[in-house]
Structures are given as structure tokens and as C-alpha cells.
């Protein structure tokens, strides 16, 4: 049995998340689309907090809502005139989009409700089964350890990837 506060929080966050995602892909002004995306990402972070992964929620806010959104806003300001509206959608493109998303979502929902393993536990039970809360010590040991269920190699691979990304970004965006 979950607390009433958790349920209310869930409904508020889920509704805001889906509505802002819908507005992000339908609004005609691109800067507004970026802002709606920001709301959607923050709502996802609230879900992470609610599911008991505080560190992940903090990373989501810092990297996605902080870093990536700043990149988006800079790119939009550099490549668009103020108040520029996007061209109206072509009918066949709109039809394809609606068909693909509705059919895809319907198939996923059917598969989801037919899935046997979802008849189960509530959020508070799941958090209780998880044992004590994850500490930073656990996450740190898992990230830089080299034993089973520890992730030193991916961690280093990501660091090399980020270096490659920095160099690649400079090379690509440099003026000739």
C-alpha cells in the first residue's frame, strides 16, 4: 500500500511529463519545444527520485536539464531568427507520424498488458525488497571496481568517448 502523497505526486508528474512531451513535438516555436523538453526531463528526474535512485535523479538534472539543455538553447539561438515559426506540416508527413506513433504505442500497450510478470508488487514493497538505500559508496565501488557487477572498463571507455567527443566537436564546428 503506497502513501497518498506518493500517488498524488505520481499523477502530477506523469501528467505534466506526457503533456510537455506532446507540446515539445507539436509547438511551432523551436525555443518553446526546448523548454517543454526541459520540463519533461525534470519530470523524469522526479520519477527517478520517487523510485529511490537519488544519485541518478541528480545526474539527470545536472547533465540533461543542465548541460544538454544549455547546448540546445545555444544551438537554437545560433541557427534561428527570433520568433521564427516552423513551416506548417505536410499532410502526408503528419499522417505518417500519427500512424507510426499510434500503432507503435498501441502495440507496446497490448504487449505490456499481456506481459505476465507485471502483476506484482507496489512501489513501497519494491523499495523495501531493495534493502537499505544505495549509498554513494556503493555506486562508487560499482563504477570503478573490476570484479563481477563492477564497471571499470565501461567507465574508462566513456571517458575516452567524452575526450573523442570534445576533440570531434572542436574539429567539426571550427571555422575553415
Amino acid at each position, binding site marked *: 500500500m503506497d502513501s497518498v502523497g506518493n500517488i498524488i505526486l505520481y499523477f502530477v508528474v506523469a501528467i505534466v511529463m506526457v503533456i510537455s512531451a506532446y507540446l515539445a513535438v507539436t509547438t511551432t516555436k523551436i525555443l518553446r519545444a526546448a523548454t517543454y523538453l526541459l520540463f519533461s526531463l525534470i519530470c523524469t528526474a522526479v520519477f527517478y527520485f520517487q523510485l529511490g535512485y537519488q544519485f541518478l535523479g541528480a545526474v539527470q538534472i545536472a547533465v540533461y536539464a543542465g548541460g544538454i539543455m544549455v547546448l540546445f538553447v545555444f544551438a537554437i539561438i545560433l541557427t534561428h531568427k527570433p520568433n521564427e515559426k516552423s513551416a506548417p506540416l505536410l499532410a502526408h508527413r503528419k499522417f505518417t507520424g500519427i500512424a507510426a506513433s499510434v500503432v507503435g504505442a498501441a502495440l507496446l500497450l497490448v504487449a505490456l*498488458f499481456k506481459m505476465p510478470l*507485471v502483476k506484482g508488487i507496489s512501489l513501497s514493497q519494491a523499495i523495501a525488497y531493495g534493502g537499505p538505500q544505495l549509498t554513494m559508496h556503493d555506486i562508487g565501488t560499482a563504477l570503478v571496481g573490476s570484479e563481477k557487477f563492477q564497471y571499470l572498463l565501461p567507465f574508462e571507455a566513456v571517458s575516452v568517448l567524452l575526450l573523442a567527443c570534445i576533440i570531434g566537436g572542436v574539429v567539426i*564546428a571550427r571555422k575553415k
Partner: protein
Amino acid sequence: MDISILWYLVPSILLFACGVYGFITRKNMIAMLISLELMLNSADLNFVIFNRYLFPGSMEGMIFTLFAIAIAAAETAIAIALIINIYRAIGNTNVTDIKEMKF
């Protein structure tokens, strides 16, 4: 009333459907990238949900999402560098106007 796993998976599906719709209908590359982020975000959310409900004792889904967020940041930075370069070459960022690989 219990918050079961379905309660979290349904908004995630809707988020993904919004992303698909935007990716197909938009012509502006930045708007397409925004739709892509929505889809990626819904996949990340799924990892965490399944981790919490089906394997509450471990944290593999969370670690996977951490790496996915790092890679998404790298991917977005490169994509935006490419978009700015395209804007310099042809003056706008519509995918339909990009017809040559080398200018």
C-alpha cells in the same frame, strides 16, 4: 491503491510515441534531435523501472542509465556541432535542404 510497474511503464510508452511522432513530422534538425532525446529518455526510464520492480536488490539498470546519460551528452554535443556546421554551409537547418555530403 498501489503504484505497480504498469503505472510507470505507460507514461514511458507515451513519451516514446511523442518522440516517434516528432521525429517523423519535423523537418528542422534541432527539433528532430529534441524528439530523439525524448525517445532516449523513455528508454532510460524503462531501465530504471525494471531495475526497481523486478530486481530490487541489484543496481545494474541504474548503472546502465548512468552510462546512457553520459553517451547521450556526447552524442548531442557532436550532433549540435554538425548542425551548426550545416547552418554555416546552407543557411538553415532543414533536413530536406541537405542534398550533398560535401559542399
